């Protein structure tokens, strides 16, 4: 018998076939239908913005991240989601900067993949929101020629973009500042103003359902967010319909779907326990509604998720299940 050239490894010697890159790339791929829908509504502008944000994210990861970090696919998701959360008419240099900031300060500095405490895409967006508040709240009208640019996309870097595009307030903005309601159908289908990825709730839900079925996203956070927003929205609307829009409007407006399905499920920045995911979701949903109804901003999904990201370590601590046998041990001691 020929003796094999032996290898020794640690047990277990079997391994589930899911790997981190596989999960990441699948999630990235699942965003393709969402991106195509955006392109349908906003034309080439949507694609340009997403490309710029992704380029910012990838180049930064390449330049300052760990070697080979691009291969795991997480930076692509960050870039795509950032692009999807920006207005389609934003200057490309800003989108690029957002991607770079999100990866640089939202991820690499923390130690790279898996270590960051806040959602990098949202850190990038929050930075842009604070840095360039006007540019990021200028919402071009959807539709029109596919190749028409929806704003001053090619503004010179670091220079002020001139906004002469036709704008249309978002349904949430319209409600908050003009007290006008937008028909739900428009929002479900995505024919309203808003950021690139706010277009079609249905497509996002379908992609999310696919991922949940594959086990790549944990359904608890999105479901608890959507449920909380619905219930709170319903109650507040009953109390004060002038201030709080109805629950369905809450569900289908703004970035709620994208946030709930893709951002509140980023395993890195949400609790690791299932109970914790419920807490996270309920907290996020509640903050979303509170900001929308009582806050100064029309939309609160980004801030809600970031705030709950901050609470994630505390939630993890609080929702750790009792170790097997410790409960009986306590009971025994009590006796």
């Amino acid at each position, binding site marked *: 018998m020929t003796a094999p050239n032996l290898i020794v490894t640690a047990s277990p010697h079997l391994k589930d076939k899911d790997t981190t890159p596989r999960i990441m790339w699948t999630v990235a791929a699942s965003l393709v239908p969402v991106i195509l829908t955006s392109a349908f509504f906003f034309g080439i502008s949507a694609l340009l913005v997403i490309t710029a944000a992704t380029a910012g994210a990838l180049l930064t990861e390449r330049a300052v991240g760990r070697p080979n970090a691009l291969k795991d696919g997480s930076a692509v998701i960050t870039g795509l989601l950032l692009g999807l959360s920006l207005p389609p008419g934003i200057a490309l240099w800003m989108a690029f900067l957002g991607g770079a900031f999100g990866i640089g300060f939202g991820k690499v500095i923390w130690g790279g993949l898996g270590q960051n405490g806040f959602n990098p895409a949202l850190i990038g967006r929050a*930075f842009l929101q*604070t840095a*360039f508040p006007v540019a990021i709240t200028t919402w071009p009208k959807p539709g029109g020629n596919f190749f028409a640019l929806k704003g001053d996309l090619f503004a*010179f870097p*670091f*220079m002020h973009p001139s906004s002469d595009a036709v704008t249309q307030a978002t349904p949430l903005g319209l409600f908050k500042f003009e007290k006008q309601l937008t028909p739900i159908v428009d929002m479900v289908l995505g024919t309203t103003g808003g950021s690139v990825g706010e277009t079609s709730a249905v497509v996002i839900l379908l992609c999310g359902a696919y991922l949940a079925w594959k086990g790549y996203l944990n359904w608890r956070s999105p479901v608890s967010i959507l449920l909380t927003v619905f219930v709170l929205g319903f109650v507040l609307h009953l109390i004060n319909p002038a201030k709080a829009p109805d629950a369905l409007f809450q569900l289908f407006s703004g970035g709620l779907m994208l946030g709930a399905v893709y951002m509140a499920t980023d395993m890195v920045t949400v609790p690791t326990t299932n109970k914790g995911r419920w807490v996270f979701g309920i907290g996020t949903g509640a903050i979303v509604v509170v900001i929308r109804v009582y806050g100064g901003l029309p939309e609160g999904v980004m801030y809600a998720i970031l705030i709950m990201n901050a609470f994630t370590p505390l939630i993890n601590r609080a929702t750790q299940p009792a170790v097997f046998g410790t409960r009986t041990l306590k009971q025994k001691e009590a006796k």
Partner: protein
Amino acid sequence: MTAIHVDAAPDATEPIVPGAPPPQPLWLDFWRGIAEDNPVMIQMLGLCPSMAVSNSLENGIGMSAAVIFVLVCSSLLVSLLRKVIPGEVRLASYILIIATFVTISDLVMQAYFPALSKTLGPFVPLIVVNCIILGRAEAFAGKVKPVRAVADAFGMGVGFTLALCTIAAFREVVGNGTLLNHPLFGPNYEPWNFMIMPPGGFLTMGLMFLVMGWWGERQKSKRAEVTP
């Protein structure tokens, strides 16, 4: 327990004050505050004003001036009075001294630099509790001779000024496109408001630490190269 047998009594000329800094040349007392014991960057004290008023260089300069004034005056006085003040009311006395100088500088600022005083707002009276000043009184001025106390205070003040003004200049340039209110990049510059808001303050400070960290790492690897 075993009693200690004392053969070598401590130096009789200068009584040993617990925790007193070892004697040093005067310029080192001064230099320490600027470099290796920089109050902001190394000791991480006095962070509140460094963040709160550092959104424009003008504010930074005004704040620094007030801090240097208070720091030097109170260190001098604390050092002069170090033998008079009983240990139990040490802190309270220091604070009284510091608060007096702070109030003076606040009143003077209100009277002669009203606009600056308005933008600095409560952060001038808050110099009282700026950890640097009390920290220096407690750790240094209360234990050494006046000359050293003043040298140290001045060094700390300059160190604070350097840190604060660097942060302030950076924030103003990026966040507003101006330096001391002069536009730098022309009218079309899109200012990064982020920088002059609270998160920008933290970020700028973070950037300074990153630069320091990077420098430290570089030094370390250089040293490693020299002595393989």
